[in-house]
């Protein structure tokens, strides 16, 4: 049966019609391409009027295939498929040609652009005639959700879902949830005490009947698809029986082994080998750190076990694995702080009184190593002058080209805290001051009034080599004061480096595990930077908070809530449509070689022992095509991407080389001998 193809060329305002002669493309398609019964150009095909145009033609002209030459299918394929299916044409009988992204936006020469657009249309027309009707399958959505990471973004997402009555599994790598916010003293711009606003939310998570908190745990693997993910979680051995432990903390008190706490105290304070990062930790159970515990090192000690009133200590514990089923995943794995030692001219690690921003947060925190007193590294002396250096590792092509968004505000917060607690002089060295959000500029104004000094200039170096009067025994910050155009040397007692926020050290592997891609700078990539900021390219996997890019607490919270809302939408709908674009194996041709089995990235292929052939589970297959290309017997074909369809499209694209009469489309077999 010959198909009746309708071709629609979109102007996209002047986006396409500027560089491409759209009328000419339509005329040409109608006159030259086999199967085309009508071709139209229209200002905005995606508008309701544009869609109605197609629907009218299907009804009145009996179109059996539709080609829309417009933007990328990424944006509007769904629109046109839906429009067609509403009038009774199977949605998989439409095809888009991307003449905007691939032609008009990248081609200046009008003749060349018009020609290329014609070829793209020819490819789509040839292909669409071989496309087959396909039916998406509808599967139920598992109402449980996995939240990965228990920082403020993950906490917000989990609480929103749990409060709405849905079950949440929260997996947190550290012994306690809370993330970075738990390390802070005050939060800008309101100077709320971080613990006062965070800990109530943390204990809500801990107590919530709908939240199962898996702390000191990590996701081992994720498989399945939207609505139906299988998750394997590894719970690291705590060496403490959570059912027996009352959280009394006696073990911690009695433990003789003290080590520097590199995580929660940012290397500025100590913890025991059995520890809880901070008093309000959720959950309350401590963990024994195998790497530093004397017992694990030498086989004796067990002081903790001796004193534990409930016999909760269990040195025999091993890692355990938990298998969960969830419908959706929210990733909220947060950020790491830049390693400030990478900019040696700032002296971090060499000059004692150079601190990172996180170290300073701990210095300020009443529960921190100095009980909230701002002191120099000797633990005794109060600084009389403090320099704050902005953009350390940010806005720097040698490290991170992006702006870390929060550190200008941190500088203002630190300035206020230093002046309030010590009365010291504070100097901020900035490139640009970026107090961007609500009430932030007002906070900047407040600090100006409070007498903080601002010097516009990126610091050249911090040195202890005195050379001018007044510099002896000080750290000297050398910079160009760019507003004056002169080099200045400011002697201070303490320097704070506002290190960049950077992607988690293991973000790449985590991304791979969850099918989430990352940009060049390492942050997870959202589906659309403006219109879909919390979804990812993998259906059912969402991102929230700083794992997506630097942002402050209000933005992290907003994203956590947004991701939760997206998940709730999926849950209340109850089902998802699974694309029917899957691969199938023609049993008669399959030799049972099993090559495809291990190649499938989604583990969709199994081997049927009884029939001695491989089989693809359509629910797991994503239609990626890896197996299709790999099968030596050519037994696998991908629906909607059959060899015949792909060759037809290529022949169409080569229209001006092959001519219109490649009519019978045959997949050429590779020649065995050179002719």
């Amino acid at each position, binding site marked *: 049966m010959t198909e009746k193809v309708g071709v629609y060329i979109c102007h996209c305002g002047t986006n396409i019609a500027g560089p491409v002669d759209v009328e000419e493309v339509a005329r040409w398609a109608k006159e030259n391409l086999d199967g085309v019964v009508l071709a139209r150009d229209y200002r905005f095909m995606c508008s309701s009027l544009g869609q109605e145009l197609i629907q009218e033609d299907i009804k009145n002209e009996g179109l059996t295939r539709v080609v829309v030459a417009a933007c990328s299918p990424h944006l509007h394929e769904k629109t046109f498929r839906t429009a067609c299916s509403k009038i009774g044409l199977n949605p998989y009988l439409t095809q888009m040609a991307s003449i905007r992204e691939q032609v008009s936006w990248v081609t200046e020469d009008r003749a060349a652009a018009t020609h290329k657009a014609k070829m793209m249309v020819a490819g789509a027309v040839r292909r669409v005639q071989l496309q087959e009707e396909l039916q998406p399958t509808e599967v139920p959505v598992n109402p449980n959700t996995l939240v990965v990471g228990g920082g403020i973004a993950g906490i917000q997402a989990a609480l929103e879902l749990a409060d709405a009555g849905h079950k949440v599994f929260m997996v947190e790598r550290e012994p306690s949830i809370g993330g970075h916010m738990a390390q802070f003293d005050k939060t800008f711009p309101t100077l709320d005490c971080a613990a006062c606003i965070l800990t109530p939310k943390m204990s809500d998570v801990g107590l919530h009947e709908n939240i199962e908190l898996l702390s000191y745990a990590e996701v081992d693997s994720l498989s399945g698809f939207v609505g139906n993910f299988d998750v394997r979680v590894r719970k690291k051995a705590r060496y403490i029986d959570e059912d027996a432990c009352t959280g009394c903390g006696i073990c911690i008190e009695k433990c003789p082994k003290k080590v520097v706490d590199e995580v929660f105290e940012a290397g500025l304070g100590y913890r025991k080998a059995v520890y809880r990062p901070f008093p309000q930790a959720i959950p309350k159970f401590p963990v024994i750190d195998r790497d530093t515990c004397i017992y694990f090192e030498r086989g004796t000690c067990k002081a903790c076990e001796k004193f534990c009133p409930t016999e909760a200590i269990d040195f025999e514990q091993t890692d355990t694995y938990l298998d969960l089923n969830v419908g959706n995943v929210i990733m909220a794995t947060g950020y790491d702080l830049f390693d400030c030692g990478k900019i040696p*001219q700032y002296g971090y690690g060499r000059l004692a009184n150079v601190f990172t921003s996180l170290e300073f947060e701990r210095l300020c925190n009443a529960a921190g190593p100095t009980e909230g007193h701002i002191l120099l590294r000797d633990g005794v002396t109060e600084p009389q002058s403090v320099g704050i250096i902005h*953009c350390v590792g940010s*806005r*720097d*092509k*040698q490290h991170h080209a992006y702006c870390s968004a929060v550190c200008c505000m941190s500088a203002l917060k630190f300035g206020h805290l230093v002046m309030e607690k010590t009365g010291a002089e504070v100097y901020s060295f900035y*490139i640009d001051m970026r107090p961007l959000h609500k009430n932030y500029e007002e906070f900047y104004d407040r600090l100006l009034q409070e007498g903080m000094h601002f010097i*516009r*200039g*990126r*610091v*050249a*170096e911090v040195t202890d080599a005195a050379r001018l009067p007044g510099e002896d025994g000080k750290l000297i910050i*050398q*910079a*160009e*004061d*760019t507003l004056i*155009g*002169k*080099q200045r040397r400011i002697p201070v007692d303490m320097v704070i480096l506002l290190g960049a926020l950077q992607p988690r050290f293991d973000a790449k592997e985590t991304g791979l595990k969850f099918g989430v891609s990352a940009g060049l700078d390492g942050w997870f990539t959202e589906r659309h930077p403006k219109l879909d900021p919390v979804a990812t390219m993998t259906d059912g996997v969402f991102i929230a908070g700083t794992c997506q890019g630097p942002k402050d607490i209000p933005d992290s919270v907003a994203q956590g809530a947004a991701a939760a809302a997206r998940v709730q939408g999926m849950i209340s709908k109850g089902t998802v449509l699974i694309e029917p674009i899957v691969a199938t194996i023609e049993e008669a041709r399959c030799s049972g070689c099993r090559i495809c089995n291990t190649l499938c990235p989604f583990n969709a292929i199994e081997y049927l022992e009884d029939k001695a052939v491989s089989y693809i589970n359509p629910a797991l297959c994503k239609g990626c095509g890896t197996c299709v290309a790999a099968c030596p017997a050519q037994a696998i074909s991908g629906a909607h991407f059959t060899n015949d369809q792909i060759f037809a499209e290529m022949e169409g694209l080569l229209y001006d080389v092959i001519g219109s009469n490649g009519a019978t489309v045959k997949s050429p077999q590779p020649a065995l001998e050179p002719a």
Partner: protein
Amino acid sequence: MSRSLGNKDDAFLNEVIEATPGGEALVTCLQCGTCGGSCPSGPDMDHTPRQLFQMINAGMRQEVLQSNAPWYCVTCYYCMTRCPKQIPITDLMYTLKRMAVRAKLYDDSDAPDWSSSFIGFVESYGRSFEFGLATRYHLTHSPLRKVGVGPMGLEMIVKDRMPLRPERIKGIDQLRTILDTAKSLEGV
């Protein structure tokens, strides 16, 4: 004289970029001042490197080429190593020196004469010649200063660290041909 503060004139900017390997990066300057802050000669310069770059952007040809800053550059490469935009600042300083010499616009600096004395020896012998350089440059240029440095030169000779006769390389004609060709290729 081109002076176009109001009306941005890219001709000078493009000329500077053109003459500097990797110079394109100049347009991304953040005006952060890391260069000016790092520069050991910063306090002696009439304009910091950062200011020069903004002036180049503003098309202030005359003022830039008259600046003493490039001549105070000791090529320590601190600025270039630390610049967050990886702008080849030291190379730009060289470019400005060359342009200033060609436009005869450098004021108030002995540096070009020192450079040409040096180059003179290289082009006639293939080697530099410290004794000749010291005497010729100081005698023709700043006889006063020579008095202060004199005893040091003498001591160098006594300590056998300053040969009194220049050495000439064998391939001096070949070298001159190469240098002449290079100059004509660059159009100078």
